């Protein structure tokens, strides 16, 4: 199946995830690829970086590059509206039941935030499969790790619920066989939905774990806090069988003391992005940074995308 390659940029808050994802997206688009840059960070920065008003619809930045800032609340609202519709249909006799009130509270349930990001991710994977690259600017660590962990965590529950439901159905079938002598049983809707959920979660988990279609870039700075948090991110994702493909040592300054120790991340290639002398705001600044000031950044990006090019669709 034709599919875009997913590039994720994650890391501690303020390390420059949005700038790195924007530089990457611009570099890929300039080398002739079709790229969609998506901000999954609820505190969006891409509008500021490109000096454009971005929203939930794709906005053209360059030939071959479009950008989107997702509206998380919009995804949650749409999801809950659908559930509410189904509940109203099933429990139509509960006319006194104030569903709107309950769903206004459910909207703030813990866990819905990362599920909204996951729904958005699945939407982009399904609807933008004709793109070469989907570049995701991720939220800071806590939410990003929850996002990557949600499919695996859900699967643990789903497997248990599946076994229990199967036992219920087996017993129900036994009773029906004895009582009603092999009368045809109605298919269990709950089991069918559990199966659908299982396959959805497995698909997303497989995408996250598949190094052919997914590359995760961990952005960090020279300071000790950023270094320590990055180490924890690598460990947390390793628990989910997800590996980091590149570390971007961002905002490097020649005369500033550096806590970065590449031995800590022994087997992960490191890309070095120097600190820009001027703020990276606006397309001119981004292109200048890639072309004139720090051509080495572009060459590093090209080098790490080279193996991906063979998977990307030919022009």
């Amino acid at each position, binding site marked *: 199946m034709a599919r875009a390659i997913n590039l994720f940029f994650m890391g501690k808050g303020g390390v420059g995830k949005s700038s790195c994802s924007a530089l990457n997206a611009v570099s890929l688009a300039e080398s002739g690829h079709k790229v969609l840059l998506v901000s999954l960070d609820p505190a969006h920065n891409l509008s500021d970086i490109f000096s454009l008003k971005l929203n939930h619809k794709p906005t053209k930045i360059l030939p071959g590059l479009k950008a989107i800032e997702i509206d998380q609340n919009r995804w949650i609202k749409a*999801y*809950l509206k659908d*559930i509410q519709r*189904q*509940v109203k*249909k*099933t*429990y139509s006799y509960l006319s006194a039941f104030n569903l709107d009130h309950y769903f206004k509270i*459910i909207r703030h*349930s*813990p*866990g*819905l935030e990362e*599920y909204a990001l996951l729904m958005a991710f699945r939407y982009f994977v399904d609807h933008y499969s004709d793109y070469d690259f989907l570049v995701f600017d991720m939220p800071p660590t806590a939410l990003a790790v929850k996002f990557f962990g*949600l499919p695996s*965590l*859900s699967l643990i*529950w*789903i497997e*248990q*619920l599946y076994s*229990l*439901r199967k*036992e*219920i159905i087996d*017993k*129900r079938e*036994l*009773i029906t066989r*004895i*009582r009603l002598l092999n009368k045809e049983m109605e298919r269990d*809707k*709950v089991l069918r*939905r*559990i199966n659908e*959920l299982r396959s959805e979660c497995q698909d997303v988990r497989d995408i996250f774990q598949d190094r052919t279609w997914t590359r995760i870039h961990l952005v960090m700075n020279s300071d000790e806090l950023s270094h320590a948090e990055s180490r924890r991110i690598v460990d947390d994702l390793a628990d989910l069988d997800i590996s980091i493909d590149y570390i971007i040592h961002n905002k490097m300054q020649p005369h500033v003391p550096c806590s970065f120790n590449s031995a800590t991340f022994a087997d992960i290639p490191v890309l070095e992005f120097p600190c820009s002398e001027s703020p990276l705001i606006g397309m001119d600044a981004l292109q200048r940074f890639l072309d004139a000031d720090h051509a080495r950044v572009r060459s590093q990006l090209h080098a790490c995308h080279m193996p991906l090019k063979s998977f990307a669709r030919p022009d």
Partner: protein
Amino acid sequence: MLRFLKNKLTLFFKTSEQVARGKAVSVIETELEELEHIFGILVLGSYVGMPSPPVHISLDLMPLMERELIMMMEKIDTANEPIAQLFSTLDIG
């Protein structure tokens, strides 16, 4: 007369068979009800303060779990008399 007797006998055997089948599955039915109750608590437990799966699993399954929800409501009535319920299930007394 003979036809009348035959019909009565058939009805008698059919009823006996149904009673036997009913008795044979009554304990399994109780067990099934308990399993369904556990399933309901597991999926919808967050609405009554129990640990629950990720919220999207509960929300996705909730519209299909009318039976389990009703059972949870009914269980409230018998929750404080588990021994009486057990005796009733085992047909004691």
